[in-house]
């Protein structure tokens, strides 16, 4: 079985599977300029953001850390930082430059407004894009992969087919020396004892229970039954009856290997193996955390179809629901619904892994093709 892919070696040693020139909005008032620039200069990836001004404390730290993380992702070749004013522009540019990537920045106020900023942005981006287009990927081992696993639009086929197939592939990545991130903390609730049994150390088991307890305490503090928020209506329509049932099926997608640690939102793993990451469940927020943590690719299982992808990390959509595979075929990258009719796990898993390596080497996912990709950074507190 093939176990290499083509990737771009970055100066910090990590390998990218795309070669984006990113245009990073430091705050939402620059989104217009960022989007205009992405239209005007070929090969650029706009990263607009909501909020980003008037935040402070841990909320601001998480927000900035996540922006730095996605801009520093190995799939990014170079970065243009756009902010309204010079202090935040400078600060973000310096933080991203620590990744070793070429970084330039614009302060809209100092540049002279929208029109001047767009002109300057085009002049800064042109050589970056030209340079990136001259880079060539090299063959690297599966051990260089940081795989994010995600689920959305879950139904009962997720736990029976698509999550087992992805878990099989995740085990292969870990065994080869790569990294796997499993997130969506509310979808550990009901299955946390299963995860804790595989914790590398007692502190890791404690961290798993603590993360889930925080979610449960919050539901109690709000006086609300979490059902309806998680599971969501399409999960329920697809046969999921409780968060416990959803979680027990969901955790399968991370595979069976030992859990090395529980990472904070957007935090990078320092070693190899399987890690949990404490994130919200909805896809845009969760995948933004995975990408900030350095995931180059995300494989996303879905039963009822969730079309969301991550603009930084190409997102492969896999379904085990034969009705979805047919009716929403436009959005399906890999169909493993044949497992319901008896296709062996190893065979479906191997098909998926082959497609993953192909995607890593350049084959586009449907989410990339259609542009169904959004960034959403988690907030801890309201803006002042």
């Amino acid at each position, binding site marked *: 079985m093939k176990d290499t892919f083509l990737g771009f070696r970055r100066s910090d040693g990590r390998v990218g599977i795309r070669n984006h020139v990113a245009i990073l909005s430091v705050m939402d008032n620059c989104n217009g300029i960022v989007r205009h620039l992405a239209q005007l200069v070929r090969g650029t990836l706009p990263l607009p953001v909501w909020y980003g001004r008037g935040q402070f404390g841990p909320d601001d730290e998480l927000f900035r850390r996540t922006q730095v993380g996605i801009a520093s992702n190995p799939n990014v070749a170079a970065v243009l930082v756009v902010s309204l004013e010079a202090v935040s522009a400078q600060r973000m540019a310096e933080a991203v430059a620590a990744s070793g990537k070429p970084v330039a920045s614009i302060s809209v106020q100092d540049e002279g407004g929208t029109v001047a900023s767009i002109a300057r942005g085009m002049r800064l981006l042109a050589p970056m894009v030209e340079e990136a287009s001259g880079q060539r990927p090299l063959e690297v081992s599966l051990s260089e992969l940081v795989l994010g696993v995600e689920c959305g639009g879950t139904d009962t086929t997720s*736990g029976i087919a698509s999550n087992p197939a992805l878990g099989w592939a995740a085990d292969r990545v870990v065994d080869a020396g790569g990294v796997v991130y499993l997130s969506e903390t509310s979808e550990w609730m009901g299955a946390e004892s299963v995860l804790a049994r595989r914790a590398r150390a007692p502190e890791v088991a404690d961290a798993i229970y603590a993360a889930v307890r925080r979610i449960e305490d919050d539901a109690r503090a709000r006086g609300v039954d979490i059902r309806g928020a*998680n599971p969501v209506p399409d999960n329920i329509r697809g046969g999921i009856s*409780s968060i416990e049932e959803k979680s027990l099926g969901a955790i399968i997608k991370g595979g069976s290997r030992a859990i090395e640690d529980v990472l904070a939102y957007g935090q990078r793993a320092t070693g190899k193996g399987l890690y949990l990451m404490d994130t919200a469940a909805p896809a845009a927020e969760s995948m933004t955390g995975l990408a900030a943590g350095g995931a180059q690719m995300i494989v996303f299982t879905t039963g009822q179809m969730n079309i969301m992808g991550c603009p930084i990390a190409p997102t492969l959509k896999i379904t085990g629901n034969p009705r979805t595979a047919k009716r929403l075929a436009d959005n399906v990258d890999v169909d493993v619904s044949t497992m319901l009719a008896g296709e062996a796990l190893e065979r479906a898993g191997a098909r998926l892994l082959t497609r993953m390596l192909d995607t890593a080497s350049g084959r586009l996912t449907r989410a990339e093709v259609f542009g169904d990709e959004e960034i959403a950074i988690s907030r801890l507190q309201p803006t002042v």
Partner: protein
Amino acid sequence: MELNAAFLHPQDNVATALVDIAEGETVQTAGARVVAAEPIPFGHKIALTRIAAGQQVTKYGESIGLAACDVLSGGLVHVHNLASQRGRGDCVTQEDGL
């Protein structure tokens, strides 16, 4: 007979329909067989035995909640008769030994 429901763990008392199952149809899994007491839509769960109110519903070998009322053998198990025990800010729930 072809398997028309998924039975995931030896301790499970529900199976998951892999096709739409009609009332009276035989449900055949890898580990159990039961007759559907009512229509079971694709992807929905069927009780493999009678499940009494308050009894644990088991899937993947673990609890997915408690029966909210008595469930017939071959009955549909879903949000109308399954009470989740987690994330229940709406009521006081039993601690499950965390």
